[in-house]
Every structure is written in structure tokens, then in C-alpha cells.
């Protein structure tokens, strides 16, 4: 069909008298991220009251929260898209560790067992690795028709194992540092590691990467053909195929997307910490899923949003930071996160059912 033609007027008057004026409120109620926004406000107010004396409402704390939320948020957005398309990626945390170590092994001097590459070639190679890992996950899920939960659970172990085994074999270490000594680091240091000082607090540049990606991916999800295909693939893969959506291609692309998001986080953290650790990214796959689900995306696919995942990551970071500064024993952190997850999902369900009844 042609794309630019405008619909002919006349069959129906543009303003249909039977179109009920839906109030802005009930329109908002229909959005997937609503519960996450409400929950974010709730959690913020909770800590603002509880941790009032610990300076929770301050630019320093805000910066700390955002600095925590950004890497998780970047992962969560990619996971959200994949989950809307009806698949899981449990290997994302392992890919963070694996690609981070890949970069470090490549740039480590040959004398220390590395390859002594420059920053650019090492990053390029890491990108190729990330794409290959995404293709591996995606094609395996598509061709075996097994649940992605199982396939990527396998990948979780495979790539975490490789992240430990290969560096140990090459360099006899599982922690590699000295990234700032590598030729070409300056550019990367600036692009991924800059601290921005405003309001007397230090904000990571990663926050800007995160926000930029939110805008880009939201636009992609809501306003491109590919975005429509993502919803279709997750809503009912069979029906989507029948209408001509290349479901397999969509899903494989999104698996590559999560792997690339993991690479971005690995790079940001490698620059930030001036090196990598084989165990970096551990449990991030679950934190990302928590952020996504609290953000209103359905585990079963077909429904959700990138903005929701953003609020999910924000909630996660607020809880983490809130517990740290209130001085509550860190042992209680997981209890709180689990409670927030359950509360978020229950809240989401409640809202969704209300929205369906309107």
C-alpha cells in the first residue's frame, strides 16, 4: 500500500458523536508504566520520610541513585523489548562479565598474557563477540523452539564460565586493571567515564547514555514498524506470522540487542573502575527482569514499555541507596527488593484489570 496518502474524509465525520470523551485520567490508567510511576513516587516518599535525617532528599543522594540506576536501566530497556516480544534473556549479566573481560584480555599487554591491542580494535572485537552471543542465544531459541528461559539459563553458565576460564588461562587472573594505560583510552574515558558536577553532586555520564537510549527505544517501540512487530511477536507469534511479521528475525534481533546493551554496560563499568572482573554483572539478569516487570511489562509478552523499565530501574536503585544511607543492615536489602517486586506486580495487575474494565 502507498504510504503518504491521507485517509479520505466523508464516510464518517471526523468527530464521531459516539466517541466518548475519555478523561485524561483513564487514558493514563491504560498505560503500562503507570503502576511503576506510582510505586516510584511511593518508594521515594517512604525514604524521604524514613531517611530524612540521613539526607535522602539531596542532590548527592539523587546523584547516587541515578548513578546506580543507569547501568541497570540500560540493561532493563533491552530486556523489556525482548520480553515484550515474548522471550527471556537470563544470560545478560554473564555477558556483562564476559564482554568486559574480553575487552580487558585484548588490551592487556602481551607480557602479562594479554594481546596488547589498542582500545578501538578491542572494542570492535568485543562488539563482534556480543553480536555473536546474541545470535547464538536467538537462533538457538528459534531453531530448537525451546523456552528461552532454558536456553539462556544455559548461556548464563556458559558465558560466566568463559568469563572466568579464558582470562585465567591467558593471564592467570580473574581481575584485570590498567585500562587507562591503553592507547586510545582518553576518548573512551571521556565518553563513558566523565563525571558531571552539578548542584554540588557528581553525576555519571552513563545517565545521559541511559536517557538517550530511553528516548530512542521508546520511539522505536511506539512509532516504527519494527516496534509494532515487537508487540505482535510477543502478543501471539503465530498470528503475527500469519499477517507477515518476520517473527524469528524480530526475536533474534532483540537477543542481539540485549547482548549489545550488556556490552555497553561492561564498557561503562570497565572505564569507571579502570578494569574488569570476571564476576561483574552477577545477578544483573534478575535485577533487570525485576525492573522490567515492576515497570509493567507482562512476563508473557505482548505488553509493556521502555519507560516502565526506566522507572523499574529507578525504584530498584532507590531501594538500594535508601537502605544504604539509612544504615539498615545490608542483609535486609534483598528482603526489601523481593517485597517491592511482589508489591509492584500485584499493583500492576490491579491497575491492568481496572484499565481493562473501563
Amino acid at each position, binding site marked *: 500500500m502507498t504510504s503518504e496518502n491521507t485517509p479520505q474524509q466523508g464516510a*464518517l465525520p471526523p468527530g464521531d458523536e459516539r466517541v466518548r470523551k475519555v478523561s485524561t485520567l483513564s487514558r493514563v490508567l491504560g498505560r503500562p508504566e503507570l503502576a511503576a510511576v506510582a510505586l516510584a513516587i511511593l518508594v521515594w516518599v517512604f525514604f524521604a520520610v524514613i531517611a530524612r535525617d540521613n539526607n535522602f532528599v539531596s542532590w548527592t543522594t539523587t546523584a547516587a541513585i541515578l548513578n546506580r540506576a543507569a547501568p541497570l536501566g540500560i540493561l532493563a530497556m533491552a530486556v523489556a523489548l525482548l520480553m515484550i516480544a515474548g522471550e527471556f534473556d537470563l544470560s545478560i549479566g554473564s555477558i556483562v562479565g564476559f564482554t568486559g573481560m574480553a575487552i580487558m584480555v585484548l588490551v592487556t599487554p602481551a607480557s602479562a598474557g594479554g594481546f596488547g591491542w589498542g582500545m578501538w580494535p578491542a572494542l570492535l572485537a568485543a562488539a563482534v563477540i556480543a553480536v555473536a552471543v546474541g545470535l547464538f542465544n536467538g537462533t538457538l531459541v528459534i531453531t530448537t523452539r525451546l523456552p528461552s528461559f532454558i536456553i539462556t539459563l544455559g548461556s548464563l553458565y556458559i558465558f560466566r564460565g568463559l568469563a572466568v576460564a579464558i582470562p585465567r588461562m591467558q593471564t592467570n587472573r580473574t581481575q584485570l586493571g590498567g585500562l587507562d594505560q591503553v592507547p586510545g583510552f582518553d576518548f573512551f574515558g571521556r565518553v563513558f567515564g566523565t563525571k558531571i558536577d552539578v548542584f554540588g553532586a557528581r553525576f555519571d555520564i552513563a545517565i545521559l547514555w541511559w536517557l538517550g537510549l530511553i528516548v530512542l527505544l521508546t520511539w522505536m517501540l511506539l512509532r516504527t514498524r519494527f516496534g509494532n512487530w515487537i508487540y505482535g511477536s510477543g502478543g501471539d507469534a503465530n498470528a503475527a506470522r500469519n499477517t507477515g511479521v518476520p517473527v524469528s528475525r524480530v526475536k533474534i534481533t532483540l537477543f542481539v540487542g540485549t547482548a549489545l546493551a550488556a556490552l555497553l554496560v561492561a564498557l561503562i563499568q570497565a572505564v569507571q573502575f579502570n578494569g574488569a572482573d570476571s564476576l561483574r554483572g552477577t545477578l544483573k539478569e534478575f535485577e533487570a527482569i525485576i525492573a522490567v516487570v515492576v515497570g509493567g511489562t507482562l512476563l508473557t509478552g505482548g505488553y509493556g514499555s521502555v519507560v516502565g523499565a526506566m522507572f523499574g530501574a529507578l525504584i530498584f536503585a532507590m531501594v538500594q541507596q535508601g537502605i544504604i544511607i539509612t544504615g539498615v543492615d545490608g542483609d535486609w536489602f534483598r528482603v526489601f527488593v523481593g517485597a517491592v517486586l511482589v508489591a509492584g506486580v500485584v499493583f500492576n495487575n490491579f491497575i491492568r484489570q481496572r484499565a481493562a474494565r473501563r
Partner: protein
Amino acid sequence: MTTTQAPLLEIRNISKYFGSVIALQDVSAFVRAGEVTCLLGDNGAGKSTLIKVLAGVHKPTEGSYFFEGTEMDFSSPRDALDRGIATVYQDLAMIPLMSIWRNFFLGSEPTKGFGPLRRFNASFARETTRLEMGKMGIDIRDPDQSVGTLSGGERQSVAIARAVYFGAKVLILDEPTAALGVKQAGTVLKYIVQAKNRGIGVIFITHNPHHAFPVGDHFVILRRGQVYGDFTKDEVPLEQLVQMMAGGADLQVLQHELEEAIRSGQVNGDEARDLEEVAAGFAGESDGEGEAGKA
């Protein structure tokens, strides 16, 4: 009722075998533009196989398929669709969680802009969805409503409107009224008439003669993979259609079995009374069997 116009789509002496199973034997049927041909048959009559042959999913083992006067040899449903033969299956190929307009254009999204800025023309899609549904006489209140909130009849109508919008000349509807309540079925029948009035040839597959009769111009009755009869509306009253569908003899056997069950006390009380009524109904219907015969 009868026109002398050439058929838009015609199958001649189609047979389809799956190994030793004869699914269809020597089936002929046609539909003209602006007419509704009803394919009637009980379960196992070969309706599903025939739909798949018409839609281009199966190649017939024997026989020929004509569309707009030329012989066709479809290798895939996409082929048939590109020619303008659209099939609306029972599962509708619709996604409940997505909005009406997103569903309407899924897989064929209109775009605007170029290069990396090429994007889904959402306002066009919304407006077109509303207009196209309006042309079918359906007022969708809000294109942003998810398809899951629509009734079965409304969903069916979205599927039909979508097929029509994307250039269907022939619309093949697979049991569109099967899972619907009386009122909703009536609504779908209305859309079938709408499509017909817009010059589309409709092939309406159903096992319900009460749904077929009001909208059909032609009735092809399938039984056990063969054409049992092919009538125009003038030739056959509804009652006859009902009998021919299931076969009067079969109904008599069923009636006998039911009476046996009641007599032997396998059922009792209210159940028995209900069943007796049903059995009596069968008896009444099968009285006309002798006259029905073969056309």
C-alpha cells in the same frame, strides 16, 4: 437473484487426497463478484480442506482453480492473498493485547519519512482504521482500544474490514459465526452483506444453515467430501437446507438412539423430557427427507 455474470472464482472437479484418505472428491463451486456463496457442511464434511485449497495452503490433487477467468496454481497463501483472495480464519490472526489500529496494520504498516527516520504513520493508521470500520457500518469508539476488549463479533468485523482494506476481491470466511451468540452472529452476517454490497465475492463457510440462508445467494452442500447439492436461494427453502446438511437418515438413527436411551432409563427426569423434545424435533425434520433428494 441469478446473474449471468462470469464467476470471479471457480473451482472445477477438485479432489484432494491425503494418502489413502479422500478428503475431497470432485468438488465444484464458484462465487461471483457481489455475491455470497455458502459452503455448508457438518463436521468432517471436508470444509477445512476445501478452505485450505481455496486459500492456497493445499494444492488440489486433481481439478482446476480459476480466478478472474484464468487458471491458478498457487504455491502459498501469500500468492493467493496477492491476487486478492483473502481468508479470514477462525483464530483471526489478531493479537488481543494490541490496539485495534496496531492490529489492523500489523505486518503491513504504513510508513512516512525516509532512512533512519522512516516511521509508522500512526495517525494515518488510526484514522484509516476508524474510517474502514465505519464503511462496514461499525463504529469503533476508540481505535486505541485493545482488541481483547472487543466482543467476538466485533473482532470478526475488524478482521473482515482489514481483508477488504488490503484489496480482497474474494473473501473466504471460515466459520465466522461459530463461536458467537445470536446477536453477535447477526452482526457478523450484516458485515457479510456489507462486503457483498461493495462488490466483493464472499465464500461463507459454516455448519449453520440458519446463518447461511439469510445472506447466501448460492448454497453448496458438502457431505463426506463430496458436493451433495448446489442450489440458488430460489431453489431451496431453509427447512430443506437444514435436512440436507446433516442427512435425514443419520438424524433418524440418532432419534432412535435417543429414544432407546430414554426407554432404558440411562437418563431420567428433566433430562429425559428434554431429550424427548430433541428427538421429536429430529423426527419432524427428517420427514421431508424423501423430497430433498439430489439436485
